[in-house]
């Protein structure tokens, strides 16, 4: 089980600060200990995983924004308020289209669940646009837009 976190590219100095802060808060990086090595992975377009100290799951999969869809995710993010906290999430329309694109049974179930739950609030034009960019269809699963 992981949570994907997408960020704009940061410089090495900022990443080292983030690394130190997370370690100070009892998290650890699963891929490597050396911040330089971790930063190199991020620069290579790979994800690094962060979990609570001495555990492996659940974990955060952290990566730098890379593709146009990543840019849309950040630019058109949605804001979720949970009590005192605020979390930015990628647009639901993009999440649904991307899950269909990934295409495993589990991904399709996730897409259908999001579509069912949020159908009243979705921007169908955007959903169609993202599905068209990713060349996916959802009619077989009830996502008929």
């Amino acid at each position, binding site marked *: *089980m992981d949570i994907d976190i997408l960020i704009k590219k940061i410089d090495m100095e900022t990443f080292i600060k983030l690394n130190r802060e997370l370690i100070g808060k009892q998290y650890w990086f*699963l*891929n490597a200990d050396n911040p330089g090595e971790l930063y190199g992975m991020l620069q290579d377009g790979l994800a690094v*995983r962060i*979990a*609570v100290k*001495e*555990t*492996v*799951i*659940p974990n955060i999969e952290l990566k730098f924004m890379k593709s146009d869809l990543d840019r849309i995710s950040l630019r058109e993010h949605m804001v979720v308020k949970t009590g005192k906290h605020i979390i930015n999430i990628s647009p639901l329309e993009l999440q649904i289209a991307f899950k269909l694109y990934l295409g495993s*049974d589990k991904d*399709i*179930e996730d897409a*259908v*669940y999001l579509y*069912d*739950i949020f159908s009243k609030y979705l921007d169908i034009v955007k959903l169609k646009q993202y599905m068209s960019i990713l060349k996916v269809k959802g009619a077989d*699963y*009830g996502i008929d837009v």
Partner: protein
Amino acid sequence: MGSMFDKKQNLAERLKFVHFYSQWVKSVPNEVWSKQQAEFINSLFENARNFHLDAKKYLKSINRR
């Protein structure tokens, strides 16, 4: 010999459950479904130390997917 497992039928049944569950979520107050989901997520954290793979094996397993 053909597979005994009908993948398409399996997905259809699972999607039926997804529809059922999403209808249930929408039919009850937020406090009801969110309490169940919070219990599930909290139990994952409580059991995180019992996970059977170390980081190296875990990363290898997800990279194989």
